[in-house]
């Protein structure tokens, strides 16, 4: 319990600070992580966490291996994220992902009246429909969602556009405008700021599967049914609309990440982060 309380203090109370730090480390103007580790300046390159699992039709083992080697740091990042999620929950998504964090922080700055509420749309079917096409379309030669619709390219360009011509060029084309609009509608203007993560992030989709498969073993946000009065406070603050109310609150591990806002607001102390009892 002591360890869980300590985690709560650092990762729960310091979450906003961690997200801001993540922006500084990953995004322009500094992009420290990329500048320190490679000659890249953003996720598009050695750190690309998405392209390696969008395999093109007719690609041989050499091309697949080449794709993995080209973005080996992105591959390592995804592997690390999936393994850590299995045991500890989706901390990458909730705390460390600079792209999701940028959307959520942007949403915090948006007046409540302007926010769009997507919580009536079940996220999982949308997300896995998108993931299916993301993987299958290039494999079947139908086309590709990879790169064209990538907020991991759009958000760094948005932060860098004031400084670098190449980043400004990103938005002088249809895909740049589409990605900008998607980011605004599904992140900055979305209640909770995480609709893009919930609907259209392939890594988030894989991460959610890892969270689901590991829920019996790893630490997760859980509801103690005996204490829950189904007051709905937790559902109101959940950025990923992962909580449903029946006789008690229920957490969908396919959408939940441990931001632990629900834990903070629960008047009964019925929500905890930990292993299954």
């Amino acid at each position, binding site marked *: 319990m002591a360890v869980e309380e300590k985690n709560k203090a650092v990762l729960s109370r310091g979450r906003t600070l961690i997200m801001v730090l993540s922006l500084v480390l990953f995004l*322009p*103007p*500094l*992009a*420290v992580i990329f*500048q*320190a*580790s*490679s*000659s*890249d*300046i*953003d996720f*598009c*390159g*050695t750190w690309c966490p998405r392209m390696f699992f969008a395999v*093109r039709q007719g690609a041989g083992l050499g*091309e697949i291996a080449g794709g993995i080697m*080209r973005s080996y740091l992105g591959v390592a990042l995804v592997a690390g994220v999936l393994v850590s999620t299995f045991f500890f929950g989706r901390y990458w998504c909730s705390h460390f992902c600079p792209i999701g964090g940028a959307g959520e922080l942007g949403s915090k700055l948006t007046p409540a009246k302007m926010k769009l509420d997507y919580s009536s*749309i*079940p996220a*999982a*079917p*949308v*997300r*896995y*429909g*998108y993931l*299916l*096409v*993301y993987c299958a*379309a*290039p494999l079947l*030669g*139908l*086309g*590709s*969602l990879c*790169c*064209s*619709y990538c907020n991991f390219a759009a958000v760094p360009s948005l*932060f*860098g556009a*004031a*400084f*670098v*011509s*190449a*980043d400004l*060029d*990103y938005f*002088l*084309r*249809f*895909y*740049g405008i589409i990605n900008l609009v998607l980011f605004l509608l599904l992140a900055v203007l979305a209640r909770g700021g995480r609709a893009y993560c919930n609907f259209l992030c392939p890594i988030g989709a894989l991460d959610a599967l890892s969270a689901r498969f590991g829920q019996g073993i790893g630490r997760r946000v859980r509801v103690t049914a005996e204490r829950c009065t189904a007051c709905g406070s937790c559902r109101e603050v959940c950025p990923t609309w992962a909580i449903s109310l029946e006789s008690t609150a229920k957490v969908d591990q396919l959408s939940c990440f441990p931001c632990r806002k629900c834990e903070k607001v629960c008047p009964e102390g019925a929500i905890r982060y930990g292993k299954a009892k």
Partner: protein
Amino acid sequence: MKFSTIALFSLSVVISAVAAHYRFHDSAHAIGMLKIGGGTARHPAVLDKERDSHVLIATAGVVPPFRGNARVVLEGGRGLSATFHNAEPAVNLGLHHRPEFRGDTYYDLRPKDRIALWVRITRNDKLESISSQIGASVPAGADALTDCPQHPAGSGLPAGKNRSAGPALAFYDTATNDRLLGIPLRFVASGGASHGR
């Protein structure tokens, strides 16, 4: 499983498939390798022939043992000009080697470097038409596609090797004038599905 879940999943698949299939050809992205003997791109860059301006994003890694400078040219056709913007850090922390890009040339490329070049391509059709009417030649530099691979006058180097037919974004070793990478450009009718086929 609920009917609404299946319906939403199906709708998501359909919309995503349409989005994946349809491409806006005002821009394209090509990935390749800069290497001695000539690297190739993963697939050609496909652009809309009806448009007057395009954005091409070319990313490439430098394969050992190449080391040196590389000049970038848009070659193999007429009527287009290009401006180049290298993707650089907003604030260069100097933590890692980075080649310098000036004008149309990368300087001090080293093995395992990676470049990301944004190329704004613009048609010069109107300029050419006006020039022919008044009997004047197109100003030097207005058409980047003619007689490439050009080389700075007086260099004494032979014409570039490995030149291919059709438009291409090409990178040439400034020391030998050998092609290090060629990215074919294909101009197609507006919109559509082709993605590097």
